[in-house]
């Protein structure tokens, strides 16, 4: 006994190895089947450890619980887990907590506060990120600006008395085109929301680090006002009377509405408007947008195939169409990574990105849904992300976001009457 206490660390080390190895071995086909395992890279017991890391109960303990208390008490039968890769797992199953992340919650809290401060006087609500699902540094930015602030061609209701057909034509637009635009995306779009001042001032962002297309209807992170009980009030909300949702992490003051737009009644503080956190899908049914830009796909590279990815993407597009029938939807091709990354990484390969972009291109209908590829603005001569524009080979540097924005400005679709379309 004395020996045991004197060597408690060694004992814990050895017993831990034995337990987790047995646990991993027994669970490797069932509970841990979803983890990719390469014996040359890691010892077997890493399976159990990874399961713990993603918030699950080790196989044997779960089994013991089953046996002792019956099935009902098992907190998570792991077979139901999605078959997507680790990434998708980490992101999709909102309830599997990553252990490592305390900073996350604080981040929300802090940004939330900033948002509140920034937003006094708005009737609608300041949205800022909420990401409790443990992805690494979740981040959302949402900026809403009243639609009436700008007269945008798309907004024109097709008048019934005009018989002439209208079509969308690609053209260059000015900054105010983006006043009723929504950007949906992952960390790259988060970067856009933090470093593109023109868009920060005008557009809305439903973007979050490590977002995937699978998270569209799963991850709750968009903060919106709670729906009023009274249906009349609900329609009032839809009028977008002046509203500013912002990226609290950044420009706390640049985003405040022009004084005349702000409601006179300053007593309506953000605290008075209860908010809730919803999925992008749900948020889209609360507020209408003129343009919706989507760039998702980098985090999905490690999971599924081009077919499964595009199928899910198409499903999401259909849902957006249904909820936002008047919006133009832009599918943005997935931005490349640098050639250095592409040649070394097992997952982030430009060939895969190109393959998936081809698939995305086919989803555009040329009527309401358009495909644009901002890689034209950021590629080098090899068709990879120009390494001078990026530090980590995946994201643009702050100053490089201007290239993306310029591309968007020069590749915008505007509705025109057929007779007015310039012939070229």
């Amino acid at each position, binding site marked *: 006994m004395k020996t045991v206490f004197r060597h408690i660390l060694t004992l814990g080390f050895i017993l831990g190895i034995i337990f987790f190895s047995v646990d991993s071995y027994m669970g490797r086909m069932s509970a841990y089947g979803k*983890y990719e395992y390469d014996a040359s890279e890691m010892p077997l017991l*890493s399976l159990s450890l990874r399961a713990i890391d993603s918030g699950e109960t080790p196989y044997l303990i779960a089994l013991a619980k089953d046996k002792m208390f019956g099935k009902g008490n098992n907190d998570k039968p792991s077979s139901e887990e999605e078959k997507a890769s680790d990434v998708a797992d980490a992101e999709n199953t909102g309830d599997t907590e990553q252990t490592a992340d305390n900073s996350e919650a*604080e981040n929300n809290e802090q940004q939330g506060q900033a948002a509140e401060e920034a937003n006094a006087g708005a009737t609608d609500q300041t949205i800022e990120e909420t990401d409790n699902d443990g992805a690494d540094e979740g981040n959302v930015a949402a900026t809403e600006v009243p639609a009436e602030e700008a007269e945008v061609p798309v907004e024109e209701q097709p008048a019934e008395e005009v018989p002439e057909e209208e079509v969308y034509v690609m053209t260059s637009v000015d900054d105010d085109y983006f006043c009723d635009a929504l950007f949906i995306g*992952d960390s790259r779009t988060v970067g856009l929301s*933090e470093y593109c001042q023109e868009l920060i001032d005008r557009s809305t962002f439903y973007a979050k680090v*490590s977002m995937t297309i699978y998270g569209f209807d799963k991850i709750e992170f968009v903060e919106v006002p709670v729906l009023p009980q009274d249906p009349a009030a609900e329609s009032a909300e839809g009028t977008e009377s002046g509203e500013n949702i912002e990226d*609290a992490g950044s420009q706390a003051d640049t985003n405040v509405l022009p004084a005349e737009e702000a409601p006179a009644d300053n007593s309506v503080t953000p605290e008075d408007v209860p908010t809730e956190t919803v999925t992008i899908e749900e948020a889209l049914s609360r507020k209408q947008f003129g343009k919706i830009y989507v760039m998702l796909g980098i985090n999905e590279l490690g999971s599924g195939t081009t077919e499964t990815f595009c199928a899910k993407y198409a499903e999401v597009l259909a849902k957006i169409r249904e909820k936002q029938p008047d919006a133009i939807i832009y599918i943005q091709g997935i931005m490349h990574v640098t050639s250095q990354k592409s040649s070394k990484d097992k997952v982030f390969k430009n060939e895969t990105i190109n393959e998936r972009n081809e698939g995305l291109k086919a989803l555009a209908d040329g009527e309401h849904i358009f495909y644009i590829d901002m890689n034209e603005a950021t590629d080098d001569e090899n068709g990879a992300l120009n390494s001078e524009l990026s530090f980590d080979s995946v994201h643009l540097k702050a100053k490089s976001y201007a290239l993306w924005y310029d591309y968007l400005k020069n590749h915008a679709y505007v509705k025109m009457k057929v007779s007015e379309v310039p012939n070229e």
Partner: protein
Amino acid sequence: MLQISTNMINFSDLSFIFRFLPIFLLVYYVVPAGYRAYITIIGSLLFYAVGDFKSLGLFCALIVINYLFSIKVKEHKKILLIVLLDVSVLMFYKIMVQMGKFPSLPLGISFFMFKMISYQADMYKGKMKEMPRFSEVLLYFSLFPQVISGPIMRYQDMKKNRIMTGMEDRFLIFRDRLPIYLGKIEEGLAIFVMGLAMKVLIADRLSMMWNDIGTIGYESISTPLAWAGVLCFSLELYFDFWGYSLMASAVCVMMGYPFIINFDQPYASKSVSEFYRRWHMTLGSWFKDYVYIPLGGSRNGDLRCALNLLVVWLLTGIWHGISLNFFLWSGSLLLMIYFEKFLWSKNDKLMAIVGRIHVLLFLPVTWVIFALTSSNDLCAYLLRLFPVKGPGIAVNPGDFGKIAGNYRYILAAGVILLIPQIFKYIYDHRRNWFVRLFLMILFWICAVVVSGKAGNPFLYFGF
């Protein structure tokens, strides 16, 4: 044959902790004492081969040449020749890597070179009691816990391992041996866990923050974030290297070597000179014993002393890498040391205040110079740190709130751990069973964190 990933040579990697280390220790303690040195040599060469198979030949050749040369070094007195040879091999690879001809240096060359030179010098000065056998020299140069980046052990210290020599357990029966072995392993594990936790829970998290700052682009960070970055990188480097050193020494302790202290609370120092006596101590004392003192140290007047310091810091700069930033780095340190030695020290009160400012304010800035090898990056960063040229490009003033906010607990933990008493308490009480229990839990937490990182390439770069 099973392909072994090069990650295995990383002490915080699961395949080192759960594969190489336990298997090695088991074999090491099971074989009779006389074979332990050979087992260690085989293990070490295997370890090296896994890490850098291509350089294994060069490594072995250097060992053989150095050994052959050393046999008669006392008589033929051509020590300069072999030192020059060793240094030029090192310089050749450094220059080649700098020019982009080779992708990386041979594994551990910067460190085993120190061992080779000090070994030659000790032989020359007749410090060895007897002529070392080849196997002993091979063991000394290749010892796997130290081969990658130190600590730089002296040859004489290698002889202090009474397990390896069999002095400790030679006449004992198995029942009495076991507690000795377990005691060594337990002691080593306790230190190992402290190092592992520093590396995995603090340094690795901080490196994510440093990476986040780089992602924004140095020309676009706000000045508060630039200063947060200074703190971040200083802490990252400290806990990364201290953690590494603890783990390396811990593995040696598990094999029966005495514990080698490589970091002794440097940030509690009262001057930069003291800081570098307490930071990467085996490197500092190596330079002291084999460069500074042989040159005359501080005994031949101020001018000579200043010159000797210049040589030491010039060599330190070159050793870290042949690029402008390392010269700037070592130059700025040298400047502070000059000021301390010849100016501030004239007045005790002044020295007390300015010395602390040096250590706590200027020194962290020198780490940024150390970190940024590209002069464009360095300029951009310094201009954000000291925004004399006006605002940067596309700066988002909210970046400090976001990034420093995200990592504030980790930063705080790092700063708190600078308080010397905390580590000292854990280290001094490492034999208490509750500290052990705490370390055991800490160990498995680290293992879980490491596994999550290894299994999920996205954790490091959450896109």
